[in-house]
């Protein structure tokens, strides 16, 4: 890079900017998406880690699903003796009944011991109530007040005890927006929990001890010192750091996936730059030859155009960083509800530098390929002489292509949540690029060959334009096709997910889920239900169990093995299962191996038979005939796998991993869940009141409410995805606009020539229309087909749902794309229409 190249690049830049400025925007959009995401993630992580102790509310938290065992209590006591503070918090799910309004609601009940949280302030209305939480007083989430139509002083029935609402909890630092969505909370003093009578067997409860440790005691040391006791009692110890990490995990995951979308937009911008530079360089061949004649070296002319491309990428990136920082500022407003903390935005120097570098680099490598042609321009071309192309492969070309491949791979691996996802994404990109380019070339050739000769002149000419030398058909198809792909996948996915979620649409219209129904309560609950429900409720008994041994080998032994393909997945051996038993196969299940049992119960002396869901069987490494020993309520029950089932998990239904044959579990401690359909909002409310009064321990999930909550959260997430998909599509549009604009001079010349030959404006316009409609259709078809394949893959393989293509939406998308293409084409002012042919010809000659 000598001074001459710099000077020339600077001088030419004025003209380059005019012609290629639009391409900078395509880099801008990709960079903006990435910078926004990276800075935002940085903000979230920083905010969470800065407040990690407040978010946990303690220096350490011990937690279990059972009563805190004595051995752990002893640990807590010894820590307290050394100066630590401890506070117990017991959480359980319960129905709350407002006496005055008669309304009911499933709530998360929290019994809180004084002192919690040790870090962070709890704000209440009226203020200062948190410290005075005692006796039969309760503090509630504002949502509880609204949903149950109650206020301070009202009575709230929780299980067998009644509480007076003392106020509302406005802010709890350990709070996460997400949690509130699954059920609003009611806080009572810890010593009152027993009085509610809700801590019975089988109830879903969580027992935590929060610890404030004295200086000098590190939570990790505590965990290490008592590791064996904690593991044996299955009590977990969580530190603020772990908590922060787990909180950022979900946002990380989201950011990773969105990062890939941003990356796709950036790469699309790269293709745009490449295609622009290609056209640009071709238009400059004469200038390049002249410079070579005058004495510029290959390196110098190459540098002149390389510098401009890199500068273009840099300016585009600067714009992208600016736009990204603006988006970053608005993202928290949009998804505040799903964020664990108040996120303060700040400019992250790292993200800015990353964006600037990445945009410039992508522009550089994508420009490199067409720029290599510059070196081949012979000075002879200035003398109107064709020069012979240098024979053989250009090693620099191979280098340039490798640079693109390595960059794409490195970036996807960097952005993706896992190496597999990164590889899959990079592979997907390669496939999409290949298919789109192939379709562009193949369909275009096919059209030329098989296009009806009898078609009107303007139509034939328009289609022929798709193959004019230096045509942008492939670039436009890539850009548009990619946009259609992204938008198409999102539309298709959303339609299919909503369809799967919708209760009305499915065969199963159940909307009430009752759980914790105790033995002996089934009939009474059924009697209440009978007055409200439509059709027979489905009752499924439930027994909690763990795996004790597989084919006679104790779980502890198996877990001690080093991991391998043979060893069952860790989670399958450690989790707590909820089993049911029944005589018949359900509609949502299909036996895929072995045979379902007939009636009559187990044969004398034979092992109890179980049916295992096929994917669990896979992870457990068991098949038909294998023996599983279950630990249920302290009793070991040996079983044999008699069949495997595939289960359609979609929709609200009572599905189980493992089903026992009848006659085995009946006498063991169990609860039942009941699934029923109660039509009408008012009926649902009255049914819940009746149930809570009769059976306060039974919890009711109003699935309609849950669905609304889920949809609200989903819609927020979808909004973010939409914004990024929109960015991606916008990048595609910009690239398309640029590609079309880059051939403007050529089309203007052709238009002028046609007009000189006597073509009317209308005819030229029709030629252009034919070209753009063909181009738009080509891209929409290719992108649409890919979108259908991709969304089918995602729906069926990832979400395990059935796929129904939303063809109406696809058709609308096609129309939109064609309209956009035509609009862009016409707006780019091609065809030379409107100006005198002579003027256009003269301008074109220059």
């Amino acid at each position, binding site marked *: 890079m*000598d*001074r*001459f190249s710099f*000077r*020339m690049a600077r*001088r*030419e830049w*004025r*003209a*380059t900017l005019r012609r290629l400025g639009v391409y900078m925007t395509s880099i801008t959009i990709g960079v903006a998406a990435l910078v926004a995401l990276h800075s935002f993630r940085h903000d979230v992580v920083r905010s969470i880690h800065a407040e990690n102790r407040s978010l946990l509310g303690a220096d350490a938290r011990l937690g279990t699903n059972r009563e805190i065992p004595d051995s752990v209590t002893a640990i807590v006591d010894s820590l307290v003796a050394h100066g630590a503070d401890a506070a117990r918090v017991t959480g359980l799910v319960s129905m709350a009944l407002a006496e005055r309004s008669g309304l009911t609601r499933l709530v998360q009940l929290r019994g809180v011991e004084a002192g919690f949280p040790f870090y962070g302030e709890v704000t209440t209305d009226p203020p200062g109530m948190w410290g005075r939480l005692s006796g039969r007083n309760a503090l509630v989430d504002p949502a509880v007040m609204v949903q149950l139509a109650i206020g301070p002083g009202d009575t709230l029935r929780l299980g067998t005890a009644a509480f007076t609402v003392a106020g509302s909890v406005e802010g709890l630092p350990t709070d996460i927006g997400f949690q509130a969505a699954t059920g609003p909370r009611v806080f009572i003093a810890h010593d009152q929990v027993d009085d509610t009578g809700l801590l019975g067997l089988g109830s879903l409860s969580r027992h935590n001890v929060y610890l404030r440790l004295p200086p000098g005691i590190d939570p990790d040391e505590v965990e290490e010192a008592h590791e064996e006791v904690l593991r044996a009692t299955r009590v977990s110890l969580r530190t603020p750091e772990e908590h922060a990490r787990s909180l950022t995990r979900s946002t990380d995951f989201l950011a990773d996936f969105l990062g890939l979308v941003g990356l796709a937009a950036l790469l699309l911008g790269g293709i745009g730059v490449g295609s622009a530079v290609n056209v640009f360089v071709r238009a400059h061949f*004469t*200038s390049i*030859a*002249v*410079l*070579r*004649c*005058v*004495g*510029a*070296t*290959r*390196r*110098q002319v190459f540098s002149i155009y390389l510098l401009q491309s890199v500068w273009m990428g840099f300016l585009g990136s600067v714009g992208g960083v600016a736009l990204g920082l603006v988006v970053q500022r608005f993202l928290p407003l949009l998804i505040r509800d799903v964020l664990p903390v108040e996120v303060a935005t700040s400019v992250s120097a790292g993200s800015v530098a990353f964006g600037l570098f990445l945009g410039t680099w992508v522009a550089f490598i994508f420009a490199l390929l067409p720029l290599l042609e510059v070196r081949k321009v*012979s*000075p*002879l071309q*200035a*003398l*109107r*002489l064709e*020069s*012979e192309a240098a024979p053989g492969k250009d090693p620099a070309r191979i280098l340039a292509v490798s640079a693109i491949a390595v960059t794409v791979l490195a970036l996807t691996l960097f952005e993706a949540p896992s190496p597999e996802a990164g590889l899959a994404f990079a592979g997907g990109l390669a496939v999409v690029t290949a298919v789109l380019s192939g379709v562009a070339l193949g369909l275009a050739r096919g059209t030329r060959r098989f296009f009806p000769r009898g078609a009107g002149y303007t139509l034939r000419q328009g289609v022929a334009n798709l193959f004019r030398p230096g045509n942008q058909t492939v670039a436009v198809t890539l850009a548009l096709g990619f946009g259609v792909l992204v938008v198409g996948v999102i539309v298709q996915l959303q339609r299919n997910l909503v369809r799967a979620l919708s209760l009305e649409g499915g065969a199963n219209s159940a909307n009430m889920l009752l759980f914790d129904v105790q033995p002996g309560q089934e009939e009474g609950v059924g009697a209440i239900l009978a007055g409200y429900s439509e059709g027979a409720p489905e009752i499924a008994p439930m027994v909690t169990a763990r795996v004790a041994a597989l084919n006679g080998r104790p779980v502890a032994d198996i877990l001690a093995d080093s991991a391998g393909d043979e060893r069952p997945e860790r989670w399958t051996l450690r989790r707590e299962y909820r089993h049911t038993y029944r005589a018949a196969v359900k509609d949502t299940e299909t036996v895929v191996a072995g045979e379902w049992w007939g009636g009559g119960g187990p044969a004398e002396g034979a092992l109890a038979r179980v049916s295992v869901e096929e994917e669990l069987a896979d992870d457990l490494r068991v098949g038909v005939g294998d023996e599983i020993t279950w630990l249920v309520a302290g009793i070991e029950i040996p079983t044999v796998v008699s069949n495997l089932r595939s289960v359609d998990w979609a929709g609200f239904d009572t599905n189980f991993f493992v089903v026992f044959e009848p006659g085995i579990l009946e006498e063991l401690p169990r609860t039942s869940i009941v699934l029923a359909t109660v039509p009408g909002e008012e009926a649902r409310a009255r049914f819940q009141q009746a149930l809570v009064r009769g059976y306060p321990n039974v919890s009711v999930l109003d699935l309609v409410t849950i669905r609304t909550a889920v949809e609200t959260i989903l819609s927020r997430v979808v909004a973010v995805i939409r914004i990024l998909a929109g960015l991606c599509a916008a990048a595609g549009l910009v690239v398309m606009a640029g590609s079309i604009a880059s051939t403007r001079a050529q089309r203007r010349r052709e238009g002028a020539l046609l007009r000189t030959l006597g073509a009317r404006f209308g005819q030229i316009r029709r030629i252009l229309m034919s070209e753009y409609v063909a181009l738009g259709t080509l891209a929409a078809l290719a992108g649409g087909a890919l979108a259908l394949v991709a969304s089918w893959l995602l729906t069926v393989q990832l979400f395990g749902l059935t796929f129904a293509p939303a063809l109406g939406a696809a058709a609308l998308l096609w129309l939109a794309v064609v309209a956009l293409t035509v609009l862009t084409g016409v707006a780019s002012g091609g065809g030379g229409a409107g100006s005198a042919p002579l003027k256009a010809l003269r*301008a074109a000659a*220059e």
Partner: protein
Amino acid sequence: MSEALQSDARAIIEARGLTRIFMSGGRPLEVLKGIDLNIGAREFVAVVGPSGSGKTTLLGLLAGLDRPTAGNVRVDGRDLGALTEDELALFRVNRIGFVFQTFHLLPTLTALENVLVPVELAGGNRGGVRLTGRAARDHARALLDRAGLGDRAHHYPVQLSGGERQRVALARAFANRPRILFADEPTGNLDADTGSTVVALMEDLNRDAGTTLVLVTHDAELAARAGRVIRLGKGRVVSDAPPVRAERFGAAPVSGQ
């Protein structure tokens, strides 16, 4: 390389057995068939001949833009065949100027900037005198003034007429005071009067700066103004003699064949 030719101190261009074969449609096409040629310093030579006779190909070879299939070219004492592409480029910057039929001004640069290109390419090093910044611009402006375009310095090529463009191209060609100026149909795109002005300008430069002029032309009138006319036909020199009109410039042709 024959001793006799090397000793010919006045020849600035010496071509020996120049042959150029192109592949055309898979078959070899011999455009130049062993041309021998000497051109003396300060000479004004016109290369004429019908289309396809190899005029432009010869020009390309003499200027080091292309490499011959056989034979060699010495320009100003350097064997062009021995130079790398980069050395050739440097050689052109310092010693050779070009004028084209279609002017070939860089459309993105102003007239002044176009003239500055060779100066800057030479790194401002013009005959051992560094010419940078302000001095370089003054130099370029003086050249434009001389071409009668002092007031058009900041115009872009599209804003200039054909004759003006060619005069800018001439100023550019002379920016580094080349030893040789090659011109390819310099008046081909100009009307007679404008063409005449441009040629007069070239003649002035030839006289004042002692520049060797080699121009390819179809224009008999233009050829008649040269001191020597080399006529090509089917890749060979058909005739090589002073024009029919009386010689106007002192330099006599260095004997060729």
